[in-house]
Structure formats: C-alpha cells, structure tokens
C-alpha cells in the first residue's frame, strides 16, 4: 500500500513539474517561432538564446502588484483563475507516457491513473475549463471581460459537440475508452511503425479533432474570447499578477493537454520505433509528437487571421457538426461491415 502511495506521489510530482515546465517553454517556443515567422528574432536576452525568458517572466509576474478592482465579485474573481488552471493540469492524469517499466524492482505503470474511461474523463475535465473563463468574465465587472466570457461560453458550447463527435470514430474502431489501451492498439512491430496509427483510419476525425481542439483552447484563429484588437484582453482584462499568470499557464497547459491527447488518439501516443528495447523512450516520442502538434498550433496562429463571430458560429454548426456526424456514421457503418 505504502509503495503505491509513494510511487504515485513521485509520479504526480514529476509529471506536474514536467507539464508546468513544458507550459513555460511553450510560451518561449511560441514567441520564438512566431517571431521568426514574422522576421523577428523573439526573446534573446535572458540567458543564452533567451532560454531563461520564461523564468524571468514567472519572476516578474510573481512580484507584480495583485490588483483587485472595486467592482469585482471578490470570491468568484479569486476562484475563476483556479477553475481555469486546475482542469488543464488534471487532463495529464490519464495521458499515458510509456509502457510498464520496472524501476528499482517495482513495476511502474507510466501513467498517473490508468482510468478505464480515460477519454471520457479528459473530455469532461477540459469542458470544465470554460467555467473559469465565463466566471472571470462575469465577476470582473468590466464590459470587455463580460463580452470575452460570453463569447467563450458560446464558442465552447458550439465546438464541444463536434469535439466530442470527432473522436467517436476512433473509439468505435478501438472499442475502448482507456487511453492506455488506445495506445496499445496503435502499436506496430513492422518497420512502418506508424502503420497502425488511427490517423490513417480516421483522417477526417483527426482533422476535426485538431480544429475543434484549437477552438476549445481559445487559440488563434478562434481566439475571440481574448481578441486583443476588440476586447483589450477579453476575459482576463482585469487580472494581474499571479491570477493572470494562472489563466496564462492554464491556456498553455490546455494546449499541451489537447496536443498530448491528440497524439495519443491519432498518432500512437508514446509508441514509436525501439520503445520496447530502450526504457523511457516512450516519453521522448510523446514529447516529440506534442512538439509537432504545438508547432502546427503556432504556425496556424501566424498564418490565419481571427474569425469573425458569425463566421465562427457558421463554421461550428454548419460545417464541423455535419462533418463530424458524417464521420461517425461512415465509421460506424464500416465497423459494422467489419472493414476496420
């Protein structure tokens, strides 16, 4: 019993530390990549190549004054960043980052919690994040924040449906809800290590997942809740210091989570060449896949302008939803026919 508690505690600490560091360096990566895409050079001064920039930012945010405007609903105002922040981190509880490893004679599962309904947990938890944004927008007592919050809720509700439907195809094929088993089914011994990845069986599903995931995490070109050219900073206009930092980390943690889940569902998770022979190589593959996903995220941000609100709604309901339904229907039909 004690062993289990100690082992899981260590795993939790390591994973959380890794995720938070990942968030910090995701901001660095974003600034660097977007910078170079726009002929700039990005952060450069804190440490070599500006590598210590995220740490400098964190220190700066911690020492900033925590401003609470007069007209806010104090309790909700304080609670909202936490609601946005925690669910983003919770997602990583079920993302597997390796097979079973034996370390110091103990059998260690390389996943925080091997939930048999892992994917449902992920979708339930990521949807909770919107409450943080909506409550932040409402409790700030500011027009911009409120508009940001309203936009966020409308957007999340619209895209949640297609988001959920986009993965049904994978679940139908795999016949499981556990992320660990999903990864196992995508394993392949042949030299074409990617041959069993679900992206080849579910190309449309993957595309829909990526689009909806971007909308779910409020990223460009779906970043209407914080549209800085219209709403100052949207739902976190009135936030400063660590409260703002929580929204910020939450957003990036959400991005990483969505990338990790996407990699797990469609790109074989931690599976890759030589994972069976080299211990802990699965982590490297997963990180690499998340990295590629993140690059696409940032690339997209630098490429396309923000949607207009009506375009966003039209796209969500008239394009994504029918496509997601079509995908589900066709996949179901093929599964019944025994093609997959």
């Amino acid at each position, binding site marked *: 019993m004690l062993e289990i508690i100690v082992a899981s505690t260590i795993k939790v600490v390591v994973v959380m530390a890794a995720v938070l560091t990942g968030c910090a360096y995701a901001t660095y990566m974003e600034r660097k990549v977007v910078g*170079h895409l726009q002929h*700039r050079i990005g952060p450069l001064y804190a440490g070599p190549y500006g590598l210590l920039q995220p740490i400098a930012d964190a220190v700066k945010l911690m020492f900033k004054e925590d401003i609470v405007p007069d007209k806010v609903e104090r309790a909700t105002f304080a609670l909202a960043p936490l609601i946005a922040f925690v669910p983003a981190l919770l997602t990583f509880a079920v993302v597997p980052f390796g097979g079973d490893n034996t370390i110091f004679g103990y059998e260690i599962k390389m996943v925080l919690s091997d939930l048999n309904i892992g994917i449902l947990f992920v979708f339930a938890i990521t949807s909770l994040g919107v409450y943080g944004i909506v409550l932040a927008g409402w409790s700030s007592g500011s027009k911009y924040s409120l508009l940001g919050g309203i936009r966020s809720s409308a957007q999340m509700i619209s895209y949640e449906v297609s988001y959920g439907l986009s993965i049904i195809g994978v679940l139908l094929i795999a016949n499981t809800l556990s992320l660990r088993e999903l990864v196992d089914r995508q394993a392949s011994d042949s030299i074409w290590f990617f041959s069993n990845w679900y992206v080849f069986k579910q190309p449309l599903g993957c595309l829909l997942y990526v689009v909806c995931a971007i909308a779910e995490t409020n990223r460009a070109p779906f970043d209407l809740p914080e549209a800085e050219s219209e709403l100052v900073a949207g739902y976190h206009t009135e936030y400063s210091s660590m409260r703002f930092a929580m929204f910020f980390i939450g957003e990036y943690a959400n991005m990483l989570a969505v990338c990790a889940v996407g990699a797990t569902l469609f790109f074989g998770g931690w599976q890759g060449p030589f994972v069976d022979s080299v211990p802990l190589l699965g982590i490297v593959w997963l990180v690499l896949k998340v990295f590629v996903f993140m690059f696409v995220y940032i690339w997209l941000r630098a490429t396309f302008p923000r949607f207009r609100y009506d375009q966003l709604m039209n796209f969500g309901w*008239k394009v994504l939803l029918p496509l997601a339904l079509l995908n589900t229907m066709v996949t179901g039909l093929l599964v019944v026919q025994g093609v997959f």
Partner: protein
Amino acid sequence: MNEVIKAVSNTFLKMPKGFVVTFKHLFRKPVTLDYPRKKKPMAPRYRGKHYLERYDDGTERCVCCGLCAAACPADAIYMEPSENEEGERYAKLYEINLLRCIFCGFCEEACPEEAIFLGHEYEFSDDNRNSFIVAKETMLVAHPRKENPFKRVYRRVRKVYGVPDRQR
C-alpha cells in the same frame, strides 16, 4: 451543404497555400537586429557625433576661425580663441551643444581647415543635460591614429582642385 463543400475545398486547396507562405518566411533572415550586440553598419556619409581632426604631428587643425559657429543654423557651437607660444591661433575653448545640434553637417562644410567632421557615433544618450555639451578634449581624435577615413577623400578633392596639402 454548400458551406460544407466550400469549407472542405478551402481546407485542402487554399489553406495549404497560406501555410506554405508562412513556412517559407520561417527561414528568412530576420529584419530585427540583435541591437546592442550587433550593430547596423552605418552609411559612409552618415552624420553622427562630431570629432576634431589633427595634423599628422598631433597639433590641432582647428584655428578657431568661427566659421563653423557662423554656419551653424542651430547655434550649437561656442568657441574662445587663444594663441600658443609660436603665435598660432587655436581654440582655447570649443564646445558643441549636442542638444541644439541638428546634425546638418554645415560646420563640416564651412571648415576651411578640414578640422571638424561628423562621425558615425550615434549612441550618446545620457541622463543629464550637462553631459551633452561636449568639450574640445573629448572631440579631438586620439593622436597616433591608424586610419583617417576622410583623408583619402580629401586628398583626392585637393588634387582635383589643385590645392596644396598643408602638411606638418
């Protein structure tokens, strides 16, 4: 239905074009300069902070004639003349107020002795006004000097106009 077709066709026909465009820009040389560490090469005729030239033996070229001060549209130059032991004029006091100076280069053009030039230095911000009044001592170039960038140009100009070079 139409919107679905349009969106799908855009995704596969038009969006990749956009991605390709931005991806190409990823490998272009950034326009931004890593400024204090790397500096932009200045144009050869850039007009920056002034410096006072010397003859080859180290005596100052400036004879304190006051033509630069007369030519100066911003009234930035102040000077007081004096004489040395050999009875030659020199500037006892020669000050330029960089806060008044508009870096037009008229002083350079007016100087009959080829003594004052506008150099390439442009980083002289400071936190008090007094330090912008630069004295002669700080403007004079170091005496044994390797290369005078203007010397070659002026030698050619003299040759063209047939003016003998006054060497000392």
